C-alpha cells in the first residue's frame, strides 16, 4: 500500500467515524453520508485555489461549516421523522445530490468531476509556517484527525454527551418526558456528523487533486453505512473494522471482476450488497456476546421516614382542563391540585381521562411523568438511566463541551443519581443490564429516572402494574419516602387497597370530569363514586 492509499483509507475512516456519531451512537439511520462528502469535497474544490481562489485553509473551513449547516438543515427537516422515514429521506438526499452534480456540468464538471492540482506547499504568512503537503503529511493529518474524533467520542461517552446520545438512541420518548431537548440534541449531532464527513471530503480532494461524482455516490453512502453498522451500537472500533474491510473490498472485487470478465463497479456492488446482508445477519450474535451483567440482590425495604416536610404548599394546579381527540371528549373541565409532600391518587374507570390528565399536567416544567408501559432502554445500564433523569432535570450550559475539555466543574452529577437510587430502593441495580431486572424493579427504575430530575411534582402512571405483593409493599414505602422528602406525588392506580394504604388524597375521574375528591375513606363512602364503579343496583 502506498502512502496515498493509506491516507485515502484514513480519510474514509474519518468520514465513517463522523457517520457513526449519527448512526451507531445516536441511532439515526442516515443513509446519505455521500451528500456530506460531496459538500466537503466540491466545496473545497469550488472555493479554494483553482476555483473561487480563496486561501486553502479558509476554503476547507467554509466547506466544513457548510457540512455542519447541511447536517443541521437535515435535522430540522427531519424533525418529524423517526427511524425508517429518516433513512428514506437521507437516501433520497444522497441521490438528489448525485443528480444535481450531473445536472450542472458547467459548475461541477459532470462525470469527470473537478480537477484541482494539489498544492505542494501550504504557506501561512501569519504563523510563518511552510508545510509540504506530501502524502505522508496527509497520513499524519488524517491519522491525527481520526484519533481526535475517536478520543472525543470515548471521552464524551463517559460524560453528559454519552447520556444525550444514549437518550437519542434508546428512548427519545422517555428522554423527552425527562426534559431532555431531543430535537436540539439531534440537530447538534447531525451538524457534527456533517462537519466531520465534510472535513474528510476536503481531505480527499486535497490528497488526490480530483473529485468525481463516483467518489461521493450513493454506493459510497451505502459503503459508509456498512462500515458503521459492522461494529454494532456505540462502539468506537466499529468504523475502524468496517473501513478495514471496505479497504480490502476493491482488490477482491477487481480480482473477481477479472476472473469472470465483468465490470469492476458491478462486482464492487455485489460484494457491498453481500457484506451489508452479512452485517445484518451477524448483528444479533455479536451483540449477545457483549451483554451486561444482571443485578445483585435487592436491599431490605426501608421503613418510611416520618413525615417532616411542611405539607400544604401547592406545587401543581390546573382548573377546567378540556382535551378532545378527533371528536372523543377525553377531558371535559377536569381540575386537580397537587401539594408538596402529599401522595395524591388519581382513580377512575378505564377511559375516564386519567392518563390524558397526566399528560396535560406533564406540560408544566415542574412536573415529570412516567409512562404507563414499561420502557426498558435495553442498552443503558440502570444507574446510567437514572443519570439521564438527572441530566434532563437541568445541568450546566454546554456541559458536553465542558466535559470534553475537562473543566473542573464537568463531573457527572453523582449525588442526585445516588439519592434517587436510594430513595427508590434500587441501590443494588447499579451497572446492571435493565433487561435482567424483575418487572417490579423495572417499574421502580422508571420512578427513579423521574426522581433524579429533581422535579417537585412526580406524575406516576400505574407504577404498580405487574408488581408482586412484595414489590407493592416496597413501592408503598418508596412513595411515602418521596412524599416525606417534600415531593408531590400524583399516582394513577387501579389497586384500591394500595390507594387506601398510601394516598393522602384521592381524586376520582369519570367521563373526563372530577366526580369526587377527598381522603380515601371519604371517597370510598361517596354515593356517586359507588354508582360509577359498582353500578346502581349495588349502590
Amino acid at each position, binding site marked *: 500500500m502506498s502512502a496515498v492509499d493509506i491516507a485515502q483509507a484514513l480519510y474514509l475512516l474519518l468520514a465513517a467515524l463522523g457517520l457513526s456519531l449519527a448512526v451507531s451512537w445516536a441511532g439515526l439511520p442516515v443513509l446519505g453520508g455521500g451528500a456530506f462528502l460531496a459538500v466537503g469535497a466540491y466545496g473545497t474544490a469550488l472555493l479554494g485555489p483553482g476555483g473561487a481562489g480563496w486561501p486553502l485553509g479558509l476554503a476547507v473551513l467554509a466547506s466544513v461549516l457548510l457540512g455542519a449547516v447541511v447536517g443541521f438543515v437535515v435535522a430540522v427537516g427531519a424533525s418529524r421523522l423517526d427511524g425508517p422515514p429518516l433513512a428514506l429521506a437521507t437516501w433520497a438526499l444522497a441521490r438528489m445530490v448525485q443528480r444535481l452534480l450531473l445536472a450542472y456540468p458547467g459548475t461541477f464538471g459532470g462525470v469527470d468531476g473537478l480537477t484541482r492540482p494539489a498544492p505542494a506547499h501550504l504557506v501561512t504568512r501569519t504563523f510563518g509556517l511552510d508545510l509540504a503537503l506530501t502524502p505522508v503529511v496527509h497520513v499524519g493529518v488524517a491519522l491525527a484527525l481520526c484519533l481526535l474524533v475517536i478520543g472525543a467520542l470515548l471521552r464524551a461517552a463517559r460524560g453528559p454527551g454519552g447520556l444525550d446520545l444514549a437518550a437519542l438512541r434508546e428512548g427519545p420518548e422517555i428522554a423527552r418526558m425527562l426534559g431532555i431537548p431531543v430535537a436540539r440534541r439531534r440537530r447538534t449531532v447531525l451538524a457534527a456528523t456533517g462537519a466531520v464527513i465534510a472535513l474528510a471530503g476536503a481531505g480527499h480532494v486535497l490528497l488526490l487533486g480530483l473529485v468525481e461524482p463516483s467518489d461521493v455516490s450513493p454506493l459510497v453512502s451505502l459503503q459508509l453505512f456498512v462500515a458503521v453498522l459492522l461494529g454494532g451500537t456505540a462502539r468506537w472500533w466499529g468504523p475502524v473494522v468496517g473501513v478495514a474491510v471496505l479497504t480490502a473490498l476493491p482488490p477482491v472485487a477487481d480480482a473477481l471482476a477479472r476472473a469472470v470478465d*465483468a465490470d469492476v463497479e458491478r462486482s464492487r456492488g455485489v460484494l457491498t450488497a453481500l457484506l451489508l446482508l452479512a452485517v445484518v445477519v451477524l448483528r444479533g450474535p455479536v451483540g449477545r456476546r457483549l451483554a451486561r451483567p444482571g443485578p445483585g440482590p435487592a436491599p431490605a425495604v426501608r421503613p418510611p421516614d416520618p413525615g417532616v416536610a411542611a405539607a400544604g404548599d401547592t406545587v401543581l394546579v390546573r382548573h377546567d382542563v378540556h382535551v378532545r381527540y378527533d371528536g372523543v371528549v377525553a377531558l371535559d373541565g377536569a381540575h386537580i391540585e397537587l401539594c408538596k409532600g402529599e401522595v395524591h391518587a388519581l382513580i377512575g374507570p378505564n377511559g375516564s381521562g386519567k392518563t390524558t390528565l397526566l399528560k396535560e399536567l406533564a406540560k408544566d416544567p415542574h412536573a415529570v411523568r412516567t409512562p404507563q408501559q414499561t420502557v426498558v432502554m435495553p442498552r443503558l445500564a440502570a444507574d446510567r438511566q437514572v443519570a439521564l433523569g438527572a441530566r434532563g432535570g437541568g445541568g450546566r450550559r454546554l456541559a458536553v463541551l465542558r466535559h470534553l475539555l475537562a473543566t473542573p466543574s464537568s463531573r457527572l452529577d453523582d449525588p442526585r443519581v445516588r439519592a434517587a437510587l436510594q430513595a427508590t430502593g434500587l441501590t443494588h441495580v447499579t451497572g446492571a443490564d435493565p433487561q435482567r431486572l424483575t418487572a417490579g424493579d423495572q417499574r421502580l427504575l422508571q420512578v427513579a429516572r423521574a426522581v433524579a430530575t429533581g422535579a417537585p411534582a412526580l406524575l406516576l402512571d400505574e407504577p404498580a402494574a405487574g408488581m408482586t405483593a412484595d414489590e407493592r409493599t416496597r413501592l408503598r414505602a418508596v412513595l411515602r419516602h418521596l412524599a416525606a422528602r417534600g415531593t408531590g406525588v400524583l399516582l394513577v392506580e387501579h389497586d384500591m387497597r394500595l390507594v387506601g394504604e398510601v394516598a393522602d388524597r384521592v381524586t376520582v375521574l369519570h367521563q373526563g370530569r372530577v366526580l369526587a375528591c377527598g381522603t380515601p375513606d371519604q371517597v370510598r363512602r361517596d354515593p356517586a363514586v359507588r354508582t360509577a364503579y359498582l353500578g346502581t343496583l349495588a349502590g
Partner: protein
Amino acid sequence: MDVGVLLQVVLAGLSTGAVLGLVGLGFSLVAGTSRVLPLAHGDVVVAAVFTGVLVVLGRTPVAQDLGALDSAGFVVVVLLAGAVLSGLIALVVVRPYRDQPLGWVAGAVAAGLLLRAVLGLLLPGQGYAVPDPLHLDALATDGLLHLPGGTTLPVRTLGVLVLGLGVGIAAERLLVRGRFGRSLRAVADDPDAAALCGVDPARVLLLAFVAAGVLAGLAGLLDAPGHAVSVDDGVVLGLEGIAAAVLGGLGSLRGALLGGLALGVAQQAAVHAGGAALQDVVPLAVLVGLLALRPQGVRR
C-alpha cells in the same frame, strides 16, 4: 402556451404519472400493511423487465417487434418475475427483521444493490431498448396522436395512461374491498389482533409483497418500451414511486394513484420549463420536501 403544447405536457405527465402511480400503489400497499418500507421496489420493476428481456431475447437484445407468442411469453415472465422477486425480498430480508428497522432498511437496500449489480454483470451496456409486448403503438396507424396546434404525442402515451390507470383503479378496488382487503387492513391496524382472528400476518405480508411485485411488473411493461432503459434506473423509479405514495398519504392506495398522476404532471411541466436535467431532480426534491414538511401526505 397554446392548447396543443399544454395538452401535450398534461397528457405525457398523466401517462408517466399512471406508471408512477402503479409503483407507488405497490409501495403504499406494503408500507400500509407491514410498516416496512420496501426500499428495493423500484429495482424490482427494472429487474422484472430485464428478466423478461433475458428470457425472451437473451443477453444481447436488439429492439425488434415481438410475435404474438413471444409477446405473451414476455408479459407472463415479467409479471411472474415481479411477483417472485418481491416475494423473495419479503421472505429473505424483511420477514426476519420486521421489528428491527435498521435490519430491514439495510436488508432492503442491500437487496436492491444486489439486483442492480447482478443485472449489470449480465447486461453490461449503458441502456437497452425494450420491445413493447402490448403493441400500444398500433392504436393509431402512424403511431401518433395529433393534437390541436399541430403538436403530436406518441399514441402509446395514451395507451399507457388508460391501461395503467385502469389496472391501478381495479387493483385498488380489489385490494380495499373483498376478503383479502379486509385481512390486509386488519394486519395493518393490529397484527396481533388479526392473528387472534385467524388471519396469518406473515402470509398477508407475503401476499402484499407479491401483489406489489405483479403491479411492479406491469409498471415496467408500460414504462420500459418508450426509452432506453439502464439496469440502474430502478433506484430513481423507486424513489419516484415512494414520492407518489408519500404525496397521497403512505398506506392509502387511492392516494398513491393520485399522487403518481400529480407527480407525473409536475415532472413533465418542469422538464418543459427547465430542461431534461430536472426530470430526476423534481421527484426527489418533492420527496425530500414532503418528508420534511408533511410526512403524513397532502390530503390529511
